C-alpha cells in the first residue's frame, strides 16, 4: 500500500482557477427545500479577517441522503472564497439527519473543508443549526461541551444563519482530525 501524496498549501493566487469558486448557491440546480443562508467571517489567531481562504461545503439533502451522481437534483456541494473583509456566504437548504452507527443519528449538519494561504493542508470542521435538537449527535458530543457552541450556527425566522470561523487562538473553532 502507498500512503496518500502529501498535501501542500493552495497559496494565495488561485481564485481564477477553481470551478465554481464563487458559486456559493447550492440551490442553483433547483429548490429542494426551504432556502437558508449561512454567512460569517473567517479570522486568524490574531483576530484579523482573512481573505482568500477556500471553504468547501458538503451536506446531505433534506432527507439525509448524500448525492452520489453528477445529475442528482440536489448535489450538496459548494465552494466560497473569503472576501477581502474575511466574509463568506452559502445559500442552501437545511440537511436532514444522517445515519450513524447502530440506530443513532447525526444531527443535521454540513462538513466544511478549509484551505488557505498559511494552511499547509486542509482543516475540517462542521456546521450545526441552533434550531435543531443537537443534544444526541454522537459526533457533536465528541467536542468538549464548552466549545460545542462554536459549531452551531444561529438563525432567524427567515432562515438566515450566522457563524464565524476562528482558525486559532481565543474562541478557536473546533476542528476535526481527518
Amino acid at each position: 500500500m502507498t500512503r496518500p501524496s502529501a498535501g501542500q498549501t493552495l497559496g494565495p493566487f488561485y481564485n481564477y482557477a477553481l470551478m465554481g469558486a464563487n458559486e456559493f448557491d447550492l440551490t442553483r440546480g433547483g429548490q429542494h427545500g426551504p432556502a437558508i443562508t449561512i454567512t460569517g467571517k473567517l479570522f486568524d489567531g490574531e483576530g484579523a479577517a482573512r481573505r482568500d481562504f477556500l471553504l468547501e461545503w458538503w451536506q446531505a439533502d433534506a432527507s439525509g441522503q448524500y448525492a452520489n451522481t453528477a445529475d442528482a437534483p440536489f448535489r450538496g456541494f459548494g465552494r466560497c472564497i473569503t472576501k477581502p473583509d474575511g466574509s463568506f456566504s452559502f445559500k442552501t437548504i437545511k440537511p436532514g439527519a444522517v445515519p450513524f452507527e447502530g440506530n443513532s443519528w447525526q444531527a443535521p449538519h454540513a462538513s466544511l473543508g478549509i484551505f488557505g494561504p498559511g494552511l499547509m493542508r486542509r482543516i475540517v470542521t462542521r456546521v450545526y443549526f441552533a434550531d435543531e435538537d443537537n443534544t444526541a449527535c454522537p459526533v457533536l458530543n465528541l467536542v468538549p461541551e464548552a466549545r460545542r457552541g462554536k459549531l452551531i450556527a444561529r438563525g432567524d425566522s427567515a432562515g438566515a444563519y450566522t457563524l464565524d470561523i476562528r482558525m486559532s487562538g481565543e474562541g478557536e473553532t473546533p476542528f476535526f482530525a481527518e
Partner: protein
Amino acid sequence: MTRVYEPFGGPSQPDLRTKRYMRTNVTAPAEALIELPRTATETSGPVFGAADVGDVGVDLTNGNTVLGSLSVIAGQVLDEDGRPVANALVEFWQANASGKYPHEVDTRPAPQDPHFTGAGRMLTDAEGRYKFTTIKPGAYPVPSSNNWWRPPHIHFSLYGDAFASRLITQMYFPGDPLNSIDGILQAVPDAAARTRLIAQQDESVGIHEHALGYRFDIVLRGHSETPMVG
C-alpha cells in the same frame, strides 16, 4: 465494497506549523484536532461531470505561442491500493514563465503573458489518467520572507471518491536547486513523501522537438477493507 480512510497526517503530510510560511502560527489551530469517526458524511463526496469541467480545457497555452518551455504533464491518480481513481476532478494552476500569477494580490513587477491562461481542469479517464499542456513556470520571491524564492511548481486540486479523499498539493520540477530549501516542500518531514511531489522527466510524455515531458502520479486517501486473515 467498504472503503477505509485511515487517519490523515503523520510524517508523510506537512506540519501545520512551519518556520517560514506566512505566519502559520496564526492559521494553524492551537487546540488538538478532535478525532472523528468516518461517517456517511466523510465517506460520501461530490461527484463531478463534464458540465462541471466546462470549456476550461487542458491546453494552458490555448494553442498560442507562449513564453517559457512548452511542457506536457501527465500522470495517474491512484488510491492507496494502487487502483486508478476514475472520474476524479483534477484542477491545476500555476504562475507564468516570469513567476507571475494573474491575481490582484500578486503585485510583484513581473510581466503577465496574455497568451497564457494559467489554469486548467479535467476529469480523469477510466485508468485514472490526466494530461495537460503548459509551460514550466518561473520561480518567484515570497514577500517579507528574507529572500525565500518558491521553486517552479504547479498547484493540483483533486477530488477522489469521497469528501475524505480531497487533496490539494503542488508538483515540483526535478533537479531544481530551490526544491531543497523551499519552506513549503520541506514542511513535509518524510523525505520519500517529498520526493513523490517531484515530477519525473519522461521523454515518452513529451512531444518530439516541441515539448518537454513530465510524469506526476498522485495517490489519494482511501483503500479497500483488508480481508480478515486466519
